[in-house]
């Protein structure tokens, strides 16, 4: 993941494990100063372990819209990475060739932060090509662009993501996914609070 802001660029490397739609674990590998910082998301709650101070910190709800590791993705994106299907009601806006444009509006019962999301989907691979996130007032807040679709086993995934906040010229985050392994056995130990420290090394 590369974060570019005001002409300054920094790169990070990490690994992610996830199971179901409510549990994920992230481990930072690079740069050396951030190595071993871990994140655990369970049922939309989030914890962070910082090895330098040997502390587990719970990310409070008020911090969920803050930048994750200084990038243009938020803590909420990490904790609720899979809730779009559950929390938003989709509606087809337009079909143009293989691209379907969908409008996702929050369900009445959903506790979400976006007013709506407009998603462009390539129906050849059923992957996103672009997502535009709007606030409650209908103002564009950020744009995700996805490229380099690759097939991993029987699944397709975009391996290049670009996240750009609207109105902040020159600021963006790029994510390159080098590999994905689907449907493998992952120990349940990764999704316990003890994992934060245990798998930090």
């Amino acid at each position, binding site marked *: 993941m590369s974060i570019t802001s005001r002409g300054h660029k920094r790169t990070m490397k990490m690994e992610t494990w996830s*199971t179901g739609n409510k549990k994920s674990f992230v481990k930072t590998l690079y740069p050396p100063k951030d190595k071993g910082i871990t994140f655990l998301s369970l049922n939309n709650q989030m914890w962070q372990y910082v090895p330098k101070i040997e502390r587990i910190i719970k990310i409070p709800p008020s911090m969920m819209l803050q930048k994750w590791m200084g990038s243009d993705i938020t803590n909420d994106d990490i904790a609720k990475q899979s809730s779009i299907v559950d929390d938003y009601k*989709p509606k087809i806006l337009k079909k143009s060739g293989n691209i379907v444009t969908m409008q996702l509006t929050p369900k009445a019962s959903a506790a979400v932060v976006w007013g709506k999301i407009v998603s462009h989907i390539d129906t050849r691979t059923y992957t996103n090509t672009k997502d535009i996130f709007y606030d409650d007032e209908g103002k564009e807040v950020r744009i995700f662009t996805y490229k380099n679709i690759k097939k991993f086993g029987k699944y397709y995934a975009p391996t290049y993501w670009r996240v750009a906040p609207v109105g902040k010229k020159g600021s963006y985050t790029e994510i390159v996914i*080098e590999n994905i392994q689907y449907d493998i056995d992952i120990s349940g130990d990764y999704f316990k609070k003890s994992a934060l420290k245990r798998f930090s090394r």
Partner: protein
Amino acid sequence: MTTVKKILIFFCVFVVVLNADEAQAIMKKVDNNMRGKKCLSEVKDEYYIPWA
């Protein structure tokens, strides 16, 4: 209400329902691709991304 009006209302509701079903199906396929959950009984819903 005339029969024509009833048919028109039925047609509109039918189109809206069809659109919602198709939209939901597309979103589920996208989600499956992102999370590897093709079918709960068929495969495990687990994935691992080494970013490095």
